[in-house]
């Protein structure tokens, strides 16, 4: 099967892109995603891929070029972070509205101001409403596996939507981990040959992308876009099942850890889930029934499945590595949406942690679990939304 390497998250995803060999990459460097595309452009210079690299003057142009290349009929990828994703913002909606299956690793990083290059989820959460599929990765292995699966998901003829593959900046992108690479032939076979739909370069059948559609049909196009999102879940599960057959590595819409018989649980995305699992083990050893739910697919959000997985709990804490100023954290809002369907709603708290790369330490998870034990006993919530890990 595969070979094992010691690589960073960025190296692993660049390797996935090399194995997939997209037709076009248009990218602009931004920390911490720079290193990913730099490594991939090395593969281009060394003749290891046939990808046409388009060097552009901004991320807005990068996404614009990706949209053009995808509409032309190419398999397209790019990567970005933070301000780069923010600058792409208006083009993200066009990629999704035009149903162009661009795959974009997002190396999660904080947004300015103040200027900060480290990991949090403010960037991709800001793009959550753009119509892109979003997969979040805990480790370099997950980022590599998600990148490969993302092409199959995005390009599936039932959906054809762009997809972001998120991993935590520096914590995963620049840390060396054990990663199992698949054989090139297996990746090529898994992803398959790119199937064009309405390519602009089919000159015998001229067509137009991006027309003006006003009050007569815009609402209907959005209704259709909503419908497509409802089909993503099944495609993600189907692709994950095929991936498991090939690798033995199991993926779903989310991961649960010691959740089935848990009384209290933490819901958390990406790398911080690893630390949380360790602390859950410690609490289990003390006889406290703690568990974890780690969403993998944040867009579309699997409300029903998440509700089913959380319905037996006595208290839930949702930890967000991004804030919606004046609102609850974005993950908390989704969990509230899931819980809404339950007859008996468990008490919930929202903690904002780790902004701008602030380390998520074991004692933060411990404090949250202690509070959950208290809430489970009393049924009382004092503060719903609170920052944790704030310096005194």
């Amino acid at each position, binding site marked *: 099967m595969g070979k094992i390497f010691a690589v960073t998250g960025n190296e692993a995803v660049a390797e996935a892109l090399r194995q997939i060999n997209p037709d076009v990459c248009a990218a602009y460097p931004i920390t911490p995603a720079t290193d990913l595309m730099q490594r991939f452009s090395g593969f281009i210079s060394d003749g290891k891929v046939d990808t046409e690299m388009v060097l552009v003057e901004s991320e807005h142009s990068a996404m614009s070029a990706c949209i053009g290349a995808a509409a032309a009929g190419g398999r397209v990828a790019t990567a970005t972070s933070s301000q780069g994703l923010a600058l792409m913002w208006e083009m993200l909606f066009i990629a999704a509205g*035009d*149903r*162009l299956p661009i795959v974009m690793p997002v190396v999660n990083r904080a947004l300015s101001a103040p200027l900060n290059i480290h990991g949090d989820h403010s960037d991709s959460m800001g793009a959550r409403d753009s119509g892109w599929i979003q997969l979040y990765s805990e480790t370099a292995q997950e980022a590599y596996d998600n990148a490969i699966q993302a092409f199959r998901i995005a390009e599936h003829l039932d959906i054809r939507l762009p997809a972001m593959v998120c991993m935590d900046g520096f914590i995963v992108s620049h840390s060396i981990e054990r990663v199992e690479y698949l054989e090139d032939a297996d990746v090529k076979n898994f992803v398959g040959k790119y199937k064009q739909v*309405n390519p602009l370069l089919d000159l015998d*059948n001229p067509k137009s992308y991006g027309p003006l559609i006003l009050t007569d*049909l815009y609402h209907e*196009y959005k209704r*259709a876009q909503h419908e497509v999102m409802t089909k993503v879940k099944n495609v993600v599960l189907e692709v994950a099942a095929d991936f498991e057959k090939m690798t033995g590595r199991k993926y779903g819409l989310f991961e649960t850890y010691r959740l089935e018989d848990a009384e209290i649980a933490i819901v958390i995305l990406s790398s911080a889930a690893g630390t949380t699992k360790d602390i859950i083990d410690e609490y289990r050893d003390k006889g406290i029934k703690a568990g974890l739910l780690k969403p993998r697919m944040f867009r579309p959000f699997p409300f029903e499945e998440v509700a089913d997985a959380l319905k037996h709990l006595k208290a839930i804490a949702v930890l967000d590595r991004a804030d919606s100023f004046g609102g609850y954290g974005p993950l908390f809002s989704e969990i509230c949406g899931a819980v809404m369907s339950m007859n008996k709603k468990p008490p919930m708290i929202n903690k904002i942690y780790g902004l701008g790369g602030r380390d998520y330490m074991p004692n933060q998870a411990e404090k949250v679990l202690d509070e959950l034990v208290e809430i489970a006993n009393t049924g009382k919530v004092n503060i719903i939304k609170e920052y944790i890990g704030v310096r005194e």
Partner: protein
Amino acid sequence: MKEPLWKRLPAGSVILEAGSAAKFKTGSWRSMRPKWIEENCIQCLFCWIYCPDMSVTVKDGKRGAFNFDYCKGCGICALECPGKKGNKAIVMEEEGN
């Protein structure tokens, strides 16, 4: 039962028919109307080249009437028109007067 309209739309709002912009008559957007003064026209066809909507009709190498189905009244033709001896062959007039 007929499928709802939104299910019958092409994915991604791609227009699969070439040249369909001709069906979209934009003349109703016009508030200013170009007027052609034939005696000042030197047949340079600048108006035809510059018109963004192909609203200047040309036959046998000579310009004809404006096609008001598409003319939005942008005034580019009047601006570019060199006219004859300082007299413009295209002038803009308020629509409805």
